[in-house]
């Protein structure tokens, strides 16, 4: 690897100070599962690597009546081991327990996955489905960015030089709600999504009518896609297969995938529809407390 300096600030203020002083010549390090590989390949050659894992806000996982606050450097394993996340933010756990294998999950973070801004990131559709908000801090202060606005292109996002993703905030789950994430890959594990879909659904008290829904699509566009128009078709309708097919068909239309070695445009569009229906079915089952 190229030569660089390593610093591990112990406060957010120190991290922002070093990142803004180096003005884009530094790279933040969370789990390193993308960054270290990218440095070895020469894609990034930062003069300084800023390890964020000594900063309390970055490694905090806090559940309260206000919702979930997930530090950007919390590794997938910590999320996977948290029973309340499995029950209340199921889509998030669905994602974090299929990112890489155990060794990767012990290091890789959801914040890092998002900042790497890969179109096929497994956590991004779940973040969209769960309505996550990114807390970004930098030399000019702190701002909130809705997660669906965070990525701007493959490997690109809204972070300005000197800025840092601190944490993700999730609202408390509504009553009678459920969420899920699924991806298509040709094997069971250790692969990159050909298509990934996350969804959340809130039902009425009777468990029959859909009150609200969110759908996130991965690997079918230059950024993760917030399929709002597809999700809107579900609102006020009964949770039947016909209703879900409407959303699936609409989501197919929102997908703008590329042809590559993992799948063709035609296949990816088809799989988007199939996964949207399946993931909605799982989210509905979970909303009913049946799965």
């Amino acid at each position, binding site marked *: *690897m*190229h*030569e*660089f*300096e*390593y610093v*591990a600030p112990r406060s957010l203020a120190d991290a922002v100070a070093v990142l803004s002083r180096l003005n884009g010549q530094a790279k933040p*390090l969370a*789990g*390193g*599962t993308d960054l*270290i*590989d990218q440095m*070895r390949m020469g894609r990034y050659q930062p003069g300084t*690597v800023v*390890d964020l*894992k000594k900063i309390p806000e970055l490694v905090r996982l806090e559940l309260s009546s206000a919702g979930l606050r997930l530090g950007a450097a919390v590794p997938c*394993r910590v999320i996977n081991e948290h029973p309340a996340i499995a029950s209340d933010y199921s889509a998030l756990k669905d994602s974090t327990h299929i990112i*890489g*294998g*155990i*060794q*990767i999950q*012990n*290091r890789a973070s959801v914040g890092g996955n998002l900042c790497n801004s890969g179109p096929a990131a497994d956590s991004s559709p779940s973040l969209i489905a769960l309505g996550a908000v990114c807390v970004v801090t930098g030399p000019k202060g702190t701002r909130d960015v809705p997660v669906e606005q965070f990525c701007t292109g493959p490997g690109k996002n809204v972070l300005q030089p000197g800025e840092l993703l601190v944490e993700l905030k999730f609202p408390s789950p509504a009553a009678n709600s459920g969420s899920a994430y699924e991806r298509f890959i040709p094997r*069971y*594990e*250790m692969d990159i999504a050909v298509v990934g879909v996350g969804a959340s659904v809130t039902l009425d008290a009777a468990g029959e009518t859909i009150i609200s829904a969110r759908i996130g699509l991965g690997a079918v566009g230059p950024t993760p896609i917030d399929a709002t128009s597809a999700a809107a078709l579900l609102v006020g309708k009964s949770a039947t297969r016909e209703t879900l097919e409407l959303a699936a068909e609409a989501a197919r239309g929102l997908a703008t995938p590329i042809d590559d070695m993992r799948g063709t445009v035609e296949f990816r569009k088809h799989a988007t529809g199939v996964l949207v229906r399946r993931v909605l079915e799982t989210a509905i089952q979970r909303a009913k407390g049946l799965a």
Partner: protein
Amino acid sequence: MAKKQVVSATINGNATEFLCEPRQTLLEALRDNLDLTGTKEGCSNGNCGACTVLLDGHPVVSCLVLAMEAEGAEVTTIEGIAPSEGLDPIQQAFLENAALQCGICTPGFIVATKALLDTNPSPTENEVRFALANNLCRCTGYDKIVRAVLDAAERRKASV
């Protein structure tokens, strides 16, 4: 050249201080600076698991960890798995089940197996296969490895 830094860590139970460059991975520091060459380099991009070590008890691929990140941490390598005399039951099970051929992947498999059995002493075959998904073997076809891990679980239970 970026100045060499001192890292203090507990490696295989021993308080250890070593010098490293910030650009060195934990894998490189273990092998090149500390002569702990039991940890193998495979793909060096996190896919193959040959360089698996335990960092504070959790398996990680040491090719995707900077040596500097080990400051204050506990690191266990394959050298720390075997007792001073003889072999760990996991190693014995790998031997007797012929769960290796060329052997390059074996230290990583054994370290990952130790982490699995320490948290889940009686895994199912499916759990074994998922727990070892981040470890690649191009010789055995995995079946003998999976059988060795299930056998190791039995041996560990018998020895307590």
